[in-house]
């Protein structure tokens, strides 16, 4: 089982949300970032393999990135929690945030809240998932893009 996370860009409730490829935030804004934990070893292939293609004008359905993974299922997986790290070359700018379950009914969807003083660097985001005595770590490539409204003409 290899876990990963997929960014959610608009979240209303567990039955109403949409995925994105990336969180896009503005440096200096307070942000609440939602994500869903996935088991990428259980990618559900819903692709139609019946040989239709470029001449039919039908776009094949993308395979999903993985089956959602619910944390804390079973007594051996208690307690559980997620730590999210926004890395930086400079230790003083690395942000480590504790994620909170977005809804008590779905332990696959979590959120982290960043204050206006916490400005992450864009790029990869690292996750540590604790279940019982087990810790699973992974990094999601280029999961966050950060606009810098204070000086976006140069870097």
């Amino acid at each position, binding site marked *: 089982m290899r876990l990963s996370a997929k960014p959610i860009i608009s979240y209303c409730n567990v039955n109403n949300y949409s995925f994105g490829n990336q969180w896009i935030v503005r440096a200096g804004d307070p942000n609440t970032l939602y994500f869903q934990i996935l088991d990428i070893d259980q990618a559900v292939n819903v692709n139609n393999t019946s040989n239709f293609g470029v001449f039919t004008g039908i*776009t094949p359905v993308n395979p999903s990135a993985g089956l959602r993974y619910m944390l804390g299922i079973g007594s051996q997986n208690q307690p559980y929690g997620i730590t999210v790290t926004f890395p930086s*070359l*400079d230790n003083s*700018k690395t942000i480590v945030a504790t994620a909170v379950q977005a809804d008590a009914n779905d332990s696959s969807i979590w959120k982290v809240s960043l204050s206006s003083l916490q400005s992450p660097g*864009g*790029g990869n985001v690292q996750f540590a998932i604790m279940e019982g005595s087990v810790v699973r770590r992974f990094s999601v*490539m280029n999961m966050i893009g950060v606009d810098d409204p204070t*000086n976006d003409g*140069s*870097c």
Partner: protein
Amino acid sequence: MGTDFPQTKGYGTAAYPVHMIADSNLFKRVEPMLTPEQLRSRFLKGIPLWFSNGDTFSDDELKDRIYLAGNQVELDLKTTLVKGQRQDKLPFKSEDYKAYIHLTAPQGPILSIEQLAIVSADKNIIFEIPPTWIETSNFEKRIINVIPLLAAYGVNSVQGAVGNAGIAFLSVMDGLNWVPAYWQIKYTSGLSNKEGLIPTNVNELIGCVAAIDLLSMIAATFIHTSQSQSQDGISQSSSGPGPRIYQLRIEELQAKRLKIEAQLRTIFSNRFIMGNF
């Protein structure tokens, strides 16, 4: 990941546009890393991203292509897109020493320097150049100079001198022309001072590389240059470019890629044009 910087010195300007200290914010020249949506809208508009057997490119696969293209661009430009800290040892060359310790770092552009020291092969710091002496204004060209002239205005101590141990090393400056590993530099290099933001033109270069690969993969599956069918005296035929379907677009992207690469190299390194006059 992560490094503490007990001391660091940069020039204090942007990595890109080079040496910019302020701008009007009316025009954007940097942005976060290319996304799959941007890759499609900027480079692959109108191109069907699926194959005749039903295979397709998902967003995750496009992300993977961007990741591969980003690594390719790092190799092409001989730098890193985001900043990283490096440690290198450079040779002692007498002619460079006479030119205010004119050192050229293997990687650039340099964003900041954390250490410049004479370090022995057993990794002892013999002599550490005071940060105040290090000239930083040519960092974008990978050049480090040491100008100790300000000593006359009050610098009266040198950090890191290890007793008499340095004498042998310092004496080589008089007697030898070349020592293969003499100066140790610890520095931060990359194309951006701000993590997560890269120059827009670099993003365009990444997009060109990714789009060329994608178009090449898709075009290879167009195996027929002509097709015809007939039945009971009625026939229909069609012909097309076959696997060369996107050749023109690929060539245009390739030309654009080479042009951006050359322009970025001009900004971030020294290009010498030599000839007989």
